[in-house]
C-alpha cells in the first residue's frame, strides 16, 4: 500500500509524532548532518543526496554506552538496560537500514541476545528515504542491495515532485500513515518505475561473482602490503561504517561505570595480547582484516556481503583510499604469485 504525504505537511506530521514518540531525523549539527532528536523543520537534511556523516547505527549501538553501573568495593550491579520510549527514526537511507539488519545477525542471535541492542531495536519504527539521486560514492547495487530496498524498514519514502509516496512495509509502519490518502494505481506505477530506473542507472563498481573465493586465495599475497601503504590507520572508515560493530569494554573508574566504546580493527592495540603477541602487527594485516571481514567472512556467516555500499569510507578517508578500487584490484591479483 502506498500513501501520499504532501511535502508541506511533513513538518506537522513530524511534530504530531513527537507527542507519542522520540523522533530522530537527519539534521544539520555544526558542519554536517546527523541523526538527532527532531527539533526544527528548517534544519532537516534528509533530502540531501549525501547521506549523514554518522550512520544511524549509533541509535542502536551508541559510540559509547554504559553496560553496568556498580557500587565500588561491593562488586554490586545496578541494572542499566532500560526500554527507551517508542521512537520513530525518520529518513534512513536503505543502505543504512540494510546494515542494521546485518547487525541483527550479530546482536540478536538465538544463542545470545544483546539486551542493549534489542531494547532499542524493539522500540524503533524506521522510516526509510529512498535514494532518487545516488551519489558518486554510492555502490549499493554492486554489493547486492539497492537504493529502494525494503530490508530493515517499516516504511519507505519515494520523493516525486511535491509529494512523498510512502510504501508501508510493516504493521508498525502502517500505524503511522493510515490517515493519509492512498496513491492511485497510476501513481504506484510511476513510483515503481522511478525506483527501477534509478536502480538500473547506478554503475556497477566491481564484480562480486567469486569475489570471496578470489580474496580467500590471496590472503598471503603482498597485495595487502601495497594497498595498506598509504593508510594512516586512523580508523575513520570503520567508525563511520554502518556495518562495523566492534567494541571495546572498559571501566570508567571515576563514574563507577563499565562501558563499551566503538573499537576498530585498524588500531594496533585492538588485537594486541597480554603476552605482547599481536596477530595483526602491521597495517597490512589490519587492512586485510577489514576487507576480508566485509567481503569474505560475512559471506561465511550469513551468505551476504557485509558492506551495503553507502560510500562513507570512500568519502571520508583522509588519504582517498577507495574500497571499490581496492576490491577491483584485489580481484585482478594473480593468486599464483602467493609467497608463503
Amino acid at each position, binding site marked *: 500500500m502506498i500513501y501520499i504525504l504532501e511535502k508541506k505537511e511533513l513538518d506537522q506530521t513530524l511534530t504530531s509524532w513527537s507527542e507519542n514518540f522520540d523522533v530522530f531525523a537527519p539534521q544539520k549539527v555544526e558542519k554536517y548532518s546527523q541523526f538527532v532528536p527532531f527539533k526544527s523543520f528548517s534544519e532537516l537534511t534528509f533530502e540531501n543526496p549525501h547521506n549523514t556523516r554518522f550512520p544511524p547505527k549509533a541509535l542502536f549501538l551508541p559510540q559509547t554506552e554504559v*553496560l*553496568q553501573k*556498580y557500587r*565500588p568495593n*561491593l*562488586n*554490586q*550491579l545496578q*541494572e542499566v*538496560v532500560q526500554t527507551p520510549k517508542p521512537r520513530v527514526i525518520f529518513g534512513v537511507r536503505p543502505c543504512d537500514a540494510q546494515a542494521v539488519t546485518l547487525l541483527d545477525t*550479530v*546482536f540478536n*542471535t538465538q*544463542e*545470545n*541476545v*544483546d*539486551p*542493549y541492542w*534489542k*531494547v532499542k531495536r524493539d522500540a524503533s519504527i524506521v522510516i526509510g528515504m529512498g535514494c532518487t539521486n545516488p551519489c558518486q560514492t554510492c555502490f549499493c547495487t554492486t554489493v547486492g542491495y539497492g537504493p529502494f530496498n525494503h530490508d530493515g524498514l517499516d516504511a519507505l519514502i519515494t520523493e516525486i515532485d511535491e509529494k512523498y509516496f510512502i510504501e508501508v512495509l510493516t504493521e508498525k509502519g502502517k500505524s503511522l500513515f493510515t490517515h493519509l490518502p492512498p496513491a492511485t494505481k497510476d501513481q504506484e506505477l510511476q513510483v515503481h518505475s522511478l525506483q527501477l530506473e534509478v536502480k538500473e542507472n547506478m554503475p556497477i563498481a566491481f564484480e562480486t561473482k567469486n569475489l570471496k573465493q578470489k580474496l*580467500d586465495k590471496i*590472503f*598471503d599475497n603482498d597485495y595487502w602490503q601495497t594497498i595498506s601503504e598509504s593508510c594512516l590507520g586512523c580508523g575513520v572508515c570503520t567508525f563511520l561504517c554502518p556495518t562495523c*560493530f*566492534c*567494541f*571495546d*569494554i*572498559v*571501566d570508567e*573508574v571515576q563514574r*563507577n561505570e*563499565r562501558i*563499551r566504546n566503538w*573499537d576498530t*580493527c585498524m588500531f594496533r592495540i*585492538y*588485537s*594486541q*595480547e*597480554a*603476552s605482547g*603477541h599481536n*596477530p*595483526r602487527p602491521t597495517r597490512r*594485516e589490519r587492512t586485510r*582484516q577489514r576487507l*576480508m*571481514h566485509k567481503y*569474505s*567472512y560475512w559471506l*561465511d*556467516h550469513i551468505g551476504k556481503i557485509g558492506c551495503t555500499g553507502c560510500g562513507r569510507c570512500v568519502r571520508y578517508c583522509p588519504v582517498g583510499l577507495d574500497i571499490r578500487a581496492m576490491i577491483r584490484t584485489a580481484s585482478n591479483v594473480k593468486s599464483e604469485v602467493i609467497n*608463503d
Partner: protein
Amino acid sequence: MTDNGHNPYNPIPMHVVRAYFESNDHSLKTFELVFDDHKDCIEFFKNYNPGQFCQLSIFGKGEAPFGVASAAWEGEFVRFTVQKMGSFTQYIHTLKAGDSIGMRGPLGNGFPLAEWKGKNLVIIGGGCAFSTLYALTKHVHHPQNRPDFDQLIVIYGARTSGLCMYKHDIQSWYQREDMQIHQAIDVPEEDWLHHVGYVPDVVREVSPSPENAVAIVCGPPIMTKFTLPVLVELGFAPETIFTSLEKRMKCGIGKCGRCNIGPKYICKDGPVFSLAELNALPADI
C-alpha cells in the same frame, strides 16, 4: 532486559574460597571460586564442559578470559590458575579467601567429549596452558567418566620444576594404573626424576600410538607449532589432533569482533579446534 531476563554482560557474583601460589616464583596463582547464589551454581554446572573458559571480572579493574581448571565433580567451585601479566592479573593476585569477584561463563565450546568416546586420549600440555587439560584429566578420572575413554596418556612440560602446576595431585597420578603421566622440564635439575627436554621431543620419545586415539595439545604458540608436526609424523590424522586457542577478547560471546581467525570467532566457535579445522582457516594467528 530481554524476555528471559538474561544479560550476558552481567558477571555472576562469586567469592574466593581458596587462593594459593602454584609456582615458586609466584607468577602463577590458583583461585577457587564459589557462587554467592546457589541458583547460579546449578546453572553453571548444567552448562559447563572441560575446555571452556570464563571471563573473570572486577569492576573498576577490568575483565579477562581464563580457562577453567576444575572438573564438575570436584565440588561446587570453579578453579582458575592466573598468570601475573598485566594490571588486571596483578590485581587478581592480591585477592584472598573471602574476597568477591565476578565471573561470566562458561564460554566457548569446550572439548568434544562425546566425539572422543571410546578413544585413547593423549593429552599434551605446556606451561600454564595446562590448566584446561588438568580439568580434562580430572574429568576423565571420575569413576563414572573413566569407562567412556580407553587409555589415558598425559605429557606435561614446564620450563622448570618450580613452574610445574598442581604438583601434589599430579604426583599421585604416577600411582594410578589407568593412566601414564610424563612430566618434563626444559633444563636438567637436581632431584628431577622425569623427562628433561622440550615437549615436542618428549612426545617423540613417548611416541603415543595414533591407533584409535585423539591428541589434545595446549601450550604456548611455539610449543604447539613444533608439537603438531610431531603428531602428524607419528600418524595422527588432522581430524584427531585438537588444540585450544586464545586471543585478545572482550565480550566472550561473539559480538565485540576482535578474536576472529578468518570467519571463526575463538570465543564462540572455539576455543577448541581440530587441526583439520585450523588447516581450513587463514593464517591469522
